[in-house]
């Protein structure tokens, strides 16, 4: 399991860096935000940019060739997500491809794969994963009911914090066909069209200006053919797809944190107070040095998480542990460094003029998405602890 990018992966990272710097710099995200504020509902990303990402093949990276993918692995994706993080670039790559596409790859029938994979990879359609119901992420906490109704199901309940939910063509809805909230068993996955009767989509305007939605489902009828995998056994594929999402989000956070840290160190060298650069003060030097150390630890954890997803020798539990480690440590470093970045920029750090705040906001949302630090510490520990 290698913890550095291969030459090909590095090449992809370089291409992504060049492309995003030209086409989707932070100023573009700021513009998206300001336009949305003036013009009502937004999908939180630039459709033309997404089209270009698709044309470059990014949406095909993680999938097997048989499904139209490039089989370039999660580590390939990670190289891209780091650059996405650096530039705060918004796109449905995580929601529709890494999360949605992976569920269909892992749980879908051939028919379902034929219906969806090419359309997702080609960017013609967009799917969003609807899991969370409670304020804090916990995929076993699903309560939304799917009741048998003739040859189909009736879905009733609510979902929240659905990434890129506004404007999605369909949702993958995790629903309970058995068991109790808190249990992994009894969860089933359904593809639900956004325009199905009884589906109500409402935007949740989060402070990172990305697209999040809440869903209300009332007696939404879906055919049995809309179910992904066996009834009540959806959790394994769901969690495996979530793990891919977690490591990619960790890579995004790593990129965002690296960019923010670089900016902050530069500021320490140029901002003069008491006739000297403030970076000459040991009180700031030591804190900056600790930030650097945590950033390095986070990078190692993220690389291990990405590599674990691609390693066929690991079982699901080993992968889950590494995904939790990556998401936790990337979030931890991002949290420390974003807070220090604001403080070290002083008064300017709390103005909207600087990009520091944009990074802070995106990082805070990413921390809470797909499991916060406490969730992943618990998960890592439960998978590791041997009781005697």
């Amino acid at each position: 399991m290698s913890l550095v990018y291969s030459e090909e992966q590095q090449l992809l990272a370089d291409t992504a860096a060049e492309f995003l710097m030209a086409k989707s710099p932070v100023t573009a995200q700021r513009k998206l935000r300001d336009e949305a504020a003036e013009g009502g509902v937004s999908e939180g990303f630039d459709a033309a940019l997404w089209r270009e990402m698709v044309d470059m093949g990014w949406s095909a990276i993680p999938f097997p060739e048989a499904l139209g993918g490039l089989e370039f692995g999660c580590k390939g994706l990670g190289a891209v997500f780091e650059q996405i993080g650096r530039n705060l670039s918004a796109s449905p790559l995580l929601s529709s491809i890494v999360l949605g596409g992976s569920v269909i790859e892992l749980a879908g029938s051939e028919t379902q794969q034929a219906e969806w994979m090419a359309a997702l990879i080609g960017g013609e359609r967009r799917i969003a994963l609807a899991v969370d119901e409670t304020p804090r992420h916990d995929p076993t906490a699903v309560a939304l009911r799917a009741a048998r109704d003739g040859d189909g199901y009736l879905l009733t309940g609510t979902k929240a914090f659905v990434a890129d939910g506004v404007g999605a063509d369909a949702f993958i809805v995790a629903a309970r066909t058995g068991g109790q909230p808190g249990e992994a068993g009894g969860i089933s996955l359904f593809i639900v069209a956004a325009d199905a009767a009884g589906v109500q989509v409402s935007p949740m305007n989060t402070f990172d200006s990305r697209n999040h939605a809440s869903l209300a489902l009332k007696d939404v009828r879906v055919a049995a053919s809309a179910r992904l995998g066996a009834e009540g056994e959806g959790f394994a594929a769901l969690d495996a797809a979530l793990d891919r999402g977690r490591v990619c989000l960790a890579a995004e956070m790593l990129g965002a944190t690296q960019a923010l840290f670089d900016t902050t160190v530069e500021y320490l060298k140029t901002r003069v107070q008491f006739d000297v650069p403030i970076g000459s003060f040991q009180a700031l030097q030591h804190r900056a040095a600790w930030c650097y150390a945590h950033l390095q630890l986070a990078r190692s954890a993220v690389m291990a998480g990405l590599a674990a997803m691609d390693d066929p020798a690991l079982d699901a539990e080993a992968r889950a542990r590494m995904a939790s480690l990556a998401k936790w440590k990337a979030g931890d470093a991002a949290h420390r460094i974003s807070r220090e970045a604001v403080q070290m920029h002083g008064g300017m750090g709390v103005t909207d003029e600087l990009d520091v705040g944009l990074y802070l906001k995106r990082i805070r949302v990413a921390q809470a998405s797909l499991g916060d630090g406490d969730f992943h510490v618990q998960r890592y520990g439960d998978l590791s602890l041997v009781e005697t």
Partner: protein
Amino acid sequence: MSTLEDFRRETRAWLEANCPPSMRTAMPDGELVWGGRTVEFKHEDQRLWFERMRDKGWFCPDWPAEYGGGGLSPEQNAVLESELRRLHCRPPQINLGIWMLGPVVLEFGTEEQKRELLPPMARGEIRWCQGFSEPNAGSDLASLKTSAVDAGDHFVVNGTKIWTSYGDKSDWMYMLVRTNPDVPKQQGISLLVVDMASPGIEARPIDLISGKSSFCQVFFDNVKVPKRQLIGPLNGGWTLAKALLQHERRAMSKFGEFSLPTHFDLLSIAGKYLPAQDASSPADVALRQRVYAMAMEEMAYSLTAQRMGEEARARRNVSGLMSIMKLVHSEQEKDKFEVLLDVLGHRALGWEGEAFEPQELAIAKAWLGSFAQTIAGGSSEVQLNVVAKRVLELPEGNAGKQGK
């Protein structure tokens, strides 16, 4: 040895034939072999492994053969190291001389010094200790005061060194001395090598909060040191000291690979002492979370060590990573033992005797020992200065300016 692949094949075969299977296991505490005038072996396999590696010249595989080394190219040396790792071979011996002084003698020593000092070092016949710190020169090493006064064909050394690991068991010391007190402090320092059997030297072990230790204070009372034992230029020792400290960092990381001083598996100990999940109080649950988070920090560190190795092999610049390893590891160890003490409750508070299990006593000792780790070998504050200045290139402040 036509190609590197041939060399790998030959090396692998040789190691498989010559490294006794018992030397391919994790090293238990106290089984390190220290080279020196008298080498102690715990069992026959240790002796065999020591002698075979010695005779192959592989105590110092990349030194020139004329000075007792193995004469390997850097590429061959990397192959050897990876094959040693692959077979989990223990280091045949530990020797500060080889890791730290040797490379400096190779770079700065005279031909005569190389012929005199290096071959016995390469055969593991001399145990070396380091005389750098003094009671009043810790983090501010350059303020050291132990003097070496010119007395014709020799120097007369007076003063004291402290924190000398195994000062009482070593054969020779390499030491920094003041040879000119009248110039800025870095410019009056020289590097000497001294036979610890010389008249006027006394090494006294130091008791620590954790009990007996390998550290000594060494006293020098009119010790005569022949002038040919000056390494590098007179008053040019500071440059050599910096080179030595770089080798120290590399040696520490190598040493770390072989045998970390404390190996307590947090998760399995927690599994043994904490109540089962379903019998846990809220306080147990909170403590459990701290155990998990600590184990994750440790994992992130060991992955970073792995990544540093990979990046170094890919010939990338790892000086940034190298500069955080000691800092992170020593601080983590301190945090880890605090968590372990909480997990064990009063079972971790024993000093000696039958009331406590050996592992419990060892954890208490290691907790006390962990305090030294963020002080010795460059305190955490010094490490942070190094990161701030050399890695982040932050501007020099007023505090800690050198040479005044």
